[in-house]
Structures are given as structure tokens and as C-alpha cells.
């Protein structure tokens, strides 16, 4: 059991938990993820470790409520406990001192990019962060990212804060302006990572993406998370989740992400109907 020490609502439907998980906290490296199961009937959900504190024995997770399982998790409060957490999983990121790295984050993807940006920053790499969200209220982790970046630029789809447009527009402007980073790190929704790779390919800039494939065990047993990289099938839970974005078959991965859409919809509808019922009874 993993007690929630701290809960914060970062933006509408985006929650942060600090959770007790000492063994994971003491082994976590940037790029690692974990798998949680909130309760006995729950599914196994992979989430990137957004931060860890070995001394306090805690890890930080950030998630957006999109389906039944994440909505249910979002209803957990401080003092509640998550039934199962296993980790750290995946291959840690190869982080070394470079001249310049651009971190491109879309939506809730800023949370998993934060430990990578910080690690680069601590090694003396110049970190330029580009953070995009739908609207001003959905921009999260601003203080954290500003503390570990040399420059931060924001974009919103509706123009309510920073650059008006997608975060890839910001990136294009920077690269067109002559910036040639050693590496671009892109984490966010699949269309955003694909668009980022398209831009960086034009300028010949190496790009690492972090894939959020559908997983079950997260330890290489089921192959649910397989993804084609450079023509070869890889298990993103073990060989990833970070890959060279220019070699990822995004079309295939985006199709694979729709495998259980019908079931997810059904589960969400049942959950909402049930939640309605609960509220009615409380009155």
C-alpha cells in the first residue's frame, strides 16, 4: 500500500500526487516509469516518475483524468493509499552534458520531461524549454521548469498565454532562427510528438520521444506496448519508453492506441452513471 502524502490540483483535471514508495524513490532515474493499480478491481496504469525524493521515500506522479481509471484515481485524497506500485521500470534516459537541449512538452507531458530537463541542467547543459497547452489554465509545472531551464517559452492553442498556436510552431521559429540544439526531447500527446519530429527532421536535429504505449505488466511479458522503431518491433516498456523519434512508426502506434477505445468509453459511461447515482444519494 502506498499512501498519498500530498495531492495538488495543478489544472482542471490534472492532478499531482506525492506518494510513499521508498524503494522506487531510491532507484528512480530520469526516464523511468512505474505501474500502479489503484484498487483490487483496477487496471495496471503506467505513469512516468515526475520526481522522486529518496530521503522522504516518495515519488511524484502527475496525471490527467481522461478515462474511468484516471478519474477514479483523481478522486483519491491525501491519506488514501494506492494498492500496488511497481518500479522503476523502463530504460533510464541517457543523459550527459551537452551544449544545448530543447525540451518540448505538450499538455501533461511537461511532468515527465521535468526530471530530464533538470538532469540536463544540473550537468551544465543549456536547457531551452517549450511548453504548450490548450489554454492558459492548463499550463502546469511553470515554476519547476523555469528553475531548471535557461529559457522557457510558452504556447497555447487559444492564444490565452504566450505564443498563439501549437508548441511545434515555437520550435520551428527557434530552429528557423538558426538554433541547432544537440538534442530535442519531446514528450506529450502522440500527434504533438509526431509533429515535433517532422519539424526537427527538416532541420536534421536529433529528437528523443517518450512513448505512452498501452501496457499490461510493464516488464516485457505481454508485448502490448510493441512499437515499430527503425523497422523493428520493440517493447516500449523494456527497450523504451524513450526512442529516436525519427525512427518511430507513429501511424502504427496511433492506430494501436485505439485498440480499446470502445471498452474505455463503456467503462467511462458506467462510471459516470454510477458517480451521478452517488451524488444523488448524498443529497
Amino acid at each position, binding site marked *: 500500500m502506498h499512501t498519498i502524502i500530498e495531492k495538488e490540483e495543478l489544472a482542471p483535471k490534472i492532478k499531482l500526487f506525492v506518494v510513499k514508495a521508498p524503494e522506487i524513490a531510491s532507484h528512480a532515474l530520469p526516464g523511468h516509469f512505474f505501474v500502479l493499480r489503484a484498487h483490487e478491481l483496477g*487496471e495496471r496504469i503506467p505513469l512516468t516518475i515526475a520526481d522522486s525524493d529518496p530521503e522522504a521515500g516518495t515519488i511524484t506522479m502527475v496525471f490527467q483524468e481522461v478515462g474511468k481509471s484516471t478519474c477514479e484515481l483523481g478522486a483519491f485524497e491525501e491519506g488514501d493509499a494506492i494498492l500496488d*506500485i511497481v518500479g522503476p521500470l523502463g530504460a533510464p534516459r541517457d543523459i550527459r552534458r551537452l551544449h544545448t537541449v530543447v525540451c518540448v512538452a505538450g499538455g501533461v507531458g511537461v511532468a515527465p520531461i521535468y526530471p530530464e530537463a533538470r538532469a540536463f541542467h544540473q550537468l551544465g547543459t543549456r536547457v531551452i524549454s517549450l511548453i504548450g497547452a490548450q489554454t492558459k489554465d492548463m499550463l502546469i509545472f511553470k515554476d519547476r521548469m523555469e528553475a531548471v531551464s535557461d529559457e522557457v517559452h510558452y504556447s497555447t492553442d487559444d492564444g490565452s498565454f504566450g505564443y498563439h498556436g501549437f508548441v511545434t510552431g515555437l520550435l520551428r521559429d527557434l530552429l528557423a532562427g538558426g538554433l541547432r540544439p544537440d538534442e530535442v526531447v519531446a514528450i506529450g500527446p502522440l500527434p504533438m510528438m509526431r509533429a515535433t519530429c517532422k519539424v526537427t527532421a527538416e532541420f536534421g536535429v536529433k529528437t528523443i520521444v517518450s512513448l505512452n504505449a498501452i501496457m499490461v505488466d510493464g516488464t516485457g511479458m*505481454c508485448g502490448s506496448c510493441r512499437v515499430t522503431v527503425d523497422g523493428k518491433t520493440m517493447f516500449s516498456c523494456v527497450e523504451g519508453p524513450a526512442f529516436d523519434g525519427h525512427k518511430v512508426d507513429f501511424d*502504427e502506434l496511433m492506430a494501436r492506441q485505439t485498440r480499446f477505445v470502445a*471498452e474505455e468509453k463503456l467503462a467511462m459511461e458506467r462510471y459516470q452513471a454510477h458517480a451521478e447515482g452517488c451524488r444523488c444519494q448524498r443529497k
Partner: protein
Amino acid sequence: MPAKVDRHAMPKQDSRERVRNFNEVALGYPAEAAVEEAKRCIACPKKPCVAGCPVEVDIPSFVKLIAEGKFVEAARSIKEKNSLPAICGRVCPQETQCEERCTLGKKGKPVAIGALERFAADYERASGAPAGSGPASGPGSGAASRAAGKVAVVGSGPAGLTCAADLARVGYSVVLFESLHSTGGVLRYGIPEFRLPKAIVDEEVEYVKSLGVEVRVNTLVGKTVSVDELFRDGFDAIFLGTGAGLPHFLGIPGENLNGVYSANEFLTRSNLMKAYLFPEYDTPIRVGRRVAVVGAGNVAMDAARTALRLGAEKVAIVYRRSRAEMPARLEEIENAEEEGVDLMLLTNPTRVLGDERGWVRGMECIRMELGEADESGRRRPIPVPGSEFVMDIDTMISAVGTDPNPLLVRAVPGLRVGRHGNVVINEDTGETSVPGVFAGGDIVTGSATVIAAMGAGKVAARGIDRFVRAKRERSE
């Protein structure tokens, strides 16, 4: 001499009924049938059955106890050698082990040793006899007070459970590490409820715990804690029983289409995550109308029968050799056929076909014929030129085997591995190339049987005991 009595068949759920539920198919002997079946044993002096048992259960003794109506005693007699009798009674291939050697089998049908083992174990459980009160060499007072030594067992499948139980029985403090949230390994994620009810796995694991074994789930050794850290934490030895969990795919085009599962994924969703109870349980599973399961081992049968129970209209086993070469147990092939699974033999998939949205719509196959025997002694399947055809399917399950799980193996520096990533051991002791690290089960052999893994767990337990005692003597 009593009149010759035929072997008693175990009652089963009717095939039309059982394809609509996940309840156990085989129902077990009633007490009278068990006694009658046990009385068929002629107690021949050579006991060939015992030699056929990888864990050396004293079969004639427990069979005699059943014949005498001493059912709980029979279960305890088995448990002196085998900590998991209710499981072995269900999933052991007795027909190629103990029962194959039974003297009665020379002229008629062998004693139904597996069914009797299952009966005794089930009877003991149902009678509520405290699980831990089994063997005479029984449990100590818990892990903390033990003195013989401290052992980490990695993986709570059949090899790990057996190794842990045997070491606990002789006084070791044992911690059993499991990466999933639930114990049992392949018994939990691989074998379906209708063949091995999970309540039985739970109770057998409880029995092992009652011997003093501490279980830590959600701990992936090599990631959550390293092997070096375990040694630093005072473990004298480590047993790796991490299984063969890495699924193979066929390597044909279209295998990443939606609707293609590894058998591991399909079965893990259904068994471990209980997706067959979706949406009560949150993990989804999607099975289409027409399913092809590629492969013909027990895992393929399990996947095919699970697909039927999840509502598939048509399920076919697709196998490139003929019926005689099918690796599954005869009993499982019969069960699958009774339930309506088609066998498409001498058929090999060449590619999976998808629609414009990335979903499976068919599978192209080619007919095969058998040629000369290959190095495995089986006749080699050869494609028949021009015989390609397309199967109309929307789900494909790849059940063509698994390799040893590489995760932990990679995390142990200096560990010698073979060509297929299998850990190389001394077969008499279970020792690996790294001092203090032992291994057994599928991680060594590649995917094999539950009982073979248990036998390997037993061998390693003895090897570990010798190793730790020698180490302690040296340091005294």
C-alpha cells in the same frame, strides 16, 4: 482377486455449458470414486511411478491412504515432497510421467494418479485442516527467528514457490520476491481459471507462507532492488526462478495490427487482470468474432478456449505440423475440440492482413506437408508451393512459445547465459556462474512444465542449503 475395475473417469462440466463460463472444467472425483480408483493400485514393489515423478512423491503411499479413506493423511503424505499438490493434480502431464510408468498401464489403463492427487489436496483444503500443519518437518516460528541462513527467491511461480517452501522447511529465512501484484507466476497469469482456479493458487501460496516464507509482491529484482543490494542486505544466496516470460512473435508482416495479441497478453489480461469480468474489473479485453490461435501447445489451447468463453463465434488452432506433433497434452486438445475449437493442421501463417484503420481482417496462410525428420526428431514441415489462402479472421493470437525473461538476467553482471537467453546452471546443484546465485525452471530450460520447474526448485533448494552451510562453516 477382485474383478478388474476400469479406470474411473473424472466428471467434467458439459462442453456446451462450460464454453459459456470460466468455472473449472474438470470437477474432481467424489470420495467413493477416489477410493475405488485408489484400490486399483496393485502396490507393485518396484514403484516405477515414483521414478516418473520429477519431485519424487511417494505415490503408492498416498494412493494407499486414499484407498483406506485417510484422505487428509494422503494429502500430507504428498506434501512431504510436493508443496503444491492441488496444482500438480490439475496441470501435471501425468500421462508422460508417473502414469506412463504405472504397471497397470502395460495391459490396461494406469491408475489415475493425477486425479487422486487432486482429490486428496482438495479434500484436505475443504476439510479446513490447517494448511501449515502438514509435514512433520513443518514450520518454524517465522522468518525472523530462523538461523540456518537467509535466501532471496526471485519469482513466485512453481520453481520459486517450491524452492522457497523447501528452504523454509529446513530452517531458512526466505523472502519470495514477485514483480507482479499477485503471486503464482504462470499459475496466475498464464493458466486460465477454468483449468486452475485462482482460489487454489491462493491457498497453495498461503500454505507456502505458513511455512514461514515472506512474500514481497510488486518488487522487480534488478530494478526495484538489485542483486548486489540483496547480498549487501544479508542474503546468503539468491534463487532466480523468473520464468520464460518473453513472448515470441512469428516475425511475419502485420503482427502489430490491432487484434493481434501474444498469448501472454491475451491470457494475462484475462487471468491476472480478470478482464473476462470486464467491466466489473477495469482491464479490457477485446475478442472478435473469428479468432486464429497460432501454435499447438497448452498455451495455445488455453488461449483458444479463453477466446470461446469470451464470446468468439469461431476459434481455430493454426499449426504447421500434424496432429501427432502437437505439443499440448492430449486431454487439453480433447477439451478444446469438445468445446468447438477447430484444428487447422499443416497450415502456416505467412502474413496478417489489415484494414485501412489498422485492424486485422484476415490472415494469409500456406499449406504444409511433412518431409524428413529434423534435428528435433519430428518431421519437418515444408510449404506446398502455390497453396496460399486467406482465413477470414479479426483476431490473431500468437502462441508460438516464450523465451527466458531477459530483464533480471541482464541486471546480473557475469551471469552466463545460453543461446536463447537461458541461464546456464550446474544441473545437480542449480548453481549459476555467479557465486551464491542459483536458478531453475523456465529461466533455465525455456518454457517447460510446472512440475519440471518444481523439480528444479527442489534441486536448487538442496544446492543452496549445501552452499550456505559450507559458507557458514568457512566463516566459523
